[in-house]
């Protein structure tokens, strides 16, 4: 197959940015409604990065995060991650469970907290994907999201398995978000990573009326 990285133009990058904008915009609204809080979102960043650089985008391979992973199935398969810094995940769970004493040390044993976080991932990824599906008119549906609280490297590398058979680079559509007021602190930002499978790029571009070689 052709090296798909070489066929990506600035027009394509703009389209991917728009996809991130629409998807994460809807997800942020869903999050805001769920928590009854104002959520800020950054302008999406579309980057062609090495795998190591991708880990660095989420705070480095050893940074501990709550990660929700799902596979996108349908006409344009891919992977999606929703990564939350532990502090932010704790705050969200406290809000969802209405328990301000909830402590992140209880992660593994607290079934309720885990299912709350899983549900959060469900809602966010669902709204991201359905807006994406509306925009592209492609049929896309999420696998059941899976949750892991662990190192960024261990979580994110799993979503790179498909991609890594084709390339040592990833095209990442990254949207950072945060509760309002905490914006200045880079490290407490959450991230949406959308990683279309290599063959999905041309499907997405064609669905939006842009040929592969524009």
């Amino acid at each position, binding site marked *: *197959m052709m*090296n798909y990285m070489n066929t990506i133009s600035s027009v394509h990058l703009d389209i991917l940015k728009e996809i991130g904008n629409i998807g994460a915009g809807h997800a942020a609204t869903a999050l805001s409604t769920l928590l009854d809080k104002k959520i800020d979102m950054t302008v999406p960043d579309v980057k062609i990065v*090495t*795998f*190591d650089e991708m*880990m660095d985008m989420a705070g*480095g*391979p*050893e940074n*501990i995060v709550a990660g929700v*992973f799902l596979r996108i199935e349908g006409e344009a398969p891919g992977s999606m991650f929703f990564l939350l810094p532990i502090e932010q995940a704790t705050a969200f769970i406290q809000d969802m469970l209405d328990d301000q004493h909830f402590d992140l040390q209880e992660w*593994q044993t607290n079934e309720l907290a885990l299912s709350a976080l899983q549900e959060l991932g469900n809602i966010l990824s669902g709204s991201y994907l359905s807006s994406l599906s509306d925009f592209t008119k492609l049929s896309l549906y999420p*696998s*059941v999201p*899976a*949750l*892991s*609280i*662990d*190192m*960024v*490297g*261990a*979580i994110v*590398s*799993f979503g*790179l*398995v*498909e991609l*890594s*058979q*084709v*390339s*040592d680079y990833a095209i990442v559509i990254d949207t950072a978000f945060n509760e309002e007021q905490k914006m200045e602190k880079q490290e407490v930002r959450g991230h949406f990573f959308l990683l279309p499978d*290599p063959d999905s790029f041309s499907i997405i571009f064609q669905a939006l009326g842009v040929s592969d070689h524009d």
Partner: protein
Amino acid sequence: MTSTLEVIKVGIADMNTVKAPQIIRTSGLGSCVGVIIYDEIKKIAGLAHVMLPESSLAREQKINKAKYADTAIIELLALLLKMGACKTNLRAKLAGGAQMFKFSGGSDLMRIGPRNVEAVKKELIRLNIRIISEDTGGSSGRTIEFNPETSLLNIRTVNQGTKDI
């Protein structure tokens, strides 16, 4: 008295070698496998951060040898021999190959961790390199650090603490 050890870091789908007193580390292993081949007498070690079991999976023209078990281990062996390691002294330790997420269905993609471990072991056996110890499987991410001075592999996890193997 404390001395600062020089730590060589290995990224994902990458490999490198060290000589004591240097130590070598790779961070955030999930389904990937960190394989260390070392010469206890010459105190030389190499580490590869393997992502995929076989290079036959590759759909790229130019293969990154460190990425696949079958190409990484033989390449690492060549690098170590070039540094002066003695083939008969070589031993191996490995860690990683976790299943970070549980899905119903369990396609081949989801089993990538165990498949990586199997492929690494198969290759080590084929090359007659004895496996001294391993910490593989489970569902935890690992950061590993090998010290060629002591031949100890330190493994750090988020949920399961730290140990030396």
